C-alpha cells in the first residue's frame, strides 16, 4: 500500500490589519493621586516619565471584560462576523488564572468559538508576538481572520508604595483583526528573548511562596496577629524593575531591533507615517526616536501621557489613538516595537487600517 500524499493549506501572499479596537477603563488616576502613596510631585513625575494620568479598571472589571470591549470594536471595524475568526490570541500577564486561558472565554463571549484560542505571555512585547503569529497563521492558510488582543489589568499586581514601576502602570485593552491581503500589510517580525536579564522586570515572588506562606499561617498560633496580617499583605506578588538595566536595553538594544525591522521590510525611516513603540516611559520613546533619526513628519505615539504604561495593551491603544486623531494615517506604514519582562521583544512594520 502506497503512502498517500498529505494535503496542506494553500498559502496566501499577504496579510494586513483589517480593523482596530480599544477599551480604556473609566477610573483616571492622576499624579496627585499617586503622590498620596509615594513621596513625589506632579512635576517630578511628568518630567521623569511624561505621564500625566493613567486609566485603571474598577475592581469588578476584569481582563476578560476589557478584552471583549476592544475585540468587539476591532471585529466591527474590520466589517467581518465573529464566526469568520479562525483564531483568538490574547497577550496578557494579568489574567488571574494560570488555567483556563482568558482567550477561550473571550472567544466564547465574542461569538468566535469554536475558534482556537490561547494566551501569550510575553509582557510588553505580547502584542507584537501576537501579530507575528497572526501574520503567519493567515499567510499559511491556517486561519482566514485572527483576532489579536493585548490586555492588562496591571493595577491588580502593583504596590502603590513602591517607586520602581507601579506609578507608571495603567489598565486597558487594544485589539486588531488580521486577515488576508493581496498586498503585504505586515513586514517580517524581528522578535527574540534575552533570559540573561530574566530578573530585570517581574514579580516579587512566585505563587509557590504564597502557598508556603498560607500553609505556614494556618499552622501558626499568631495567625490573627498584626505581624501575620502585614506579612500576608506584602506576600501578594507585585511588579518590580531594575530601571537602569531596562532603560539601557530598551533604548540602545531596541533601537537596533527597530532598525532591523525596517531593513527586513525593505523600507527606511523616511517611508514611515508613524512610530508606535511600547509606551513604557516618555524618555524611552524620545531616546528611541532620536536613535532612529526619524524625520519630523513621522508621527510618534505618545499615548503614555494619558494612559500610562499598559504593557501588552500599549501599542494597539496608542495606534488606536493616533488613527482617531490623525485619520490621514490610514494606509500609511507604522513601525511598532514591544519590549519587556523576559526580557523579550518584538517589532514589525505594519500598514495602518
Amino acid at each position, binding site marked *: 500500500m502506497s503512502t498517500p500524499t498529505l494535503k496542506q493549506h494553500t498559502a496566501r501572499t499577504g496579510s494586513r490589519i483589517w480593523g482596530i479596537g480599544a477599551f480604556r477603563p473609566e477610573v483616571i488616576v492622576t499624579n496627585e493621586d499617586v503622590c498620596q502613596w509615594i513621596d513625589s510631585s506632579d512635576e517630578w513625575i511628568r518630567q*521623569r516619565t511624561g505621564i500625566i494620568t493613567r486609566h485603571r479598571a474598577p475592581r469588578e472589571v476584569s481582563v476578560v471584560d476589557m478584552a471583549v470591549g476592544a475585540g468587539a470594536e476591532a471585529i466591527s471595524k474590520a466589517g467581518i462576523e465573529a464566526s469568520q475568526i479562525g483564531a483568538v490570541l490574547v497577550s496578557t500577564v494579568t489574567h488571574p488564572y494560570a488555567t483556563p486561558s482568558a482567550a477561550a472565554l473571550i472567544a466564547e463571549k465574542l461569538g468566535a468559538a469554536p475558534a482556537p484560542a490561547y494566551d501569550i505571555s510575553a509582557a510588553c512585547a505580547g502584542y507584537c508576538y501576537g501579530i507575528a503569529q497572526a501574520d503567519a497563521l493567515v499567510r499559511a492558510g491556517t486561519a482566514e481572520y485572527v483576532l489579536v488582543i493585548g490586555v492588562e489589568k496591571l493595577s491588580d499586581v502593583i504596590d502603590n508604595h513602591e517607586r520602581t514601576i507601579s506609578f507608571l502602570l495603567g489598565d486597558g485593552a487594544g485589539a486588531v483583526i488580521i486577515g488576508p491581503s493581496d498586498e503585504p500589510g505586515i513586514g517580517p517580525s524581528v522578535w527574540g528573548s534575552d533570559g540573561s536579564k530574566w530578573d530585570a522586570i517581574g514579580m516579587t515572588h512566585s505563587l509557590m511562596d504564597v502557598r508556603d506562606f498560607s500553609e505556614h499561617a494556618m499552622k501558626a498560633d499568631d495567625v490573627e496577629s498584626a505581624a501575620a496580617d502585614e506579612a500576608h499583605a506584602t506576600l501578594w506578588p507585585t511588579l518590580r524593575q*531594575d*530601571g*537602569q*538595566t531596562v*532603560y*539601557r536595553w530598551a*533604548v*540602545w538594544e531596541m533601537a537596533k531591533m527597530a532598525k532591523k525591522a525596517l531593513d527586513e521590510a525593505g523600507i527606511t525611516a523616511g517611508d514611515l507615517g508613524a512610530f508606535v513603540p511600547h509606551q513604557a*516611559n516618555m*524618555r524611552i520613546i524620545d*531616546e528611541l526616536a532620536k536613535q532612529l533619526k526619524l524625520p519630523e513628519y513621522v508621527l510618534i505615539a505618545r499615548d503614555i501621557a494619558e494612559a500610562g504604561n499598559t504593557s501588552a495593551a500599549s501599542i494597539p491603544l496608542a495606534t488606536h489613538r493616533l488613527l482617531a486623531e490623525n485619520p490621514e494615517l490610514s494606509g500609511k506604514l507604522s513601525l511598532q516595537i514591544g519590549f519587556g519582562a523576559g526580557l523579550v521583544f518584538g517589532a514589525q512594520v505594519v500598514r495602518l487600517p
Partner: protein
Amino acid sequence: MASNEEILAGLAEIVNEETGLAPEAVELEKSFTDDLDIDSISMMTIVVNAEEKFDVKIPDEEVKNLKTVGDAVSFIAGAQA
C-alpha cells in the same frame, strides 16, 4: 588612551549635552545624584555615551558604584588601561 584630564573634559561635555549643566560644574568630587541632580535614566544615557566616546564597556552592575565624577573618571581610565 586619554589622560584623566581628557576623560574629565569628555565626561563634562557628555553631561552638558544630557542635562544642560555647565561643563565647569562637572568636578571630580561632585556626586552625580546629590550635587549634579542627575537621575538614574540620565545617568544611563551618560554611561552609554561615555562608552562610545572612550571605547570602554561599563557593565550595568558597575554603574551603581559610580557615585562621583571621580569614580567615573577612575573607572574609565582603568578600563582603557
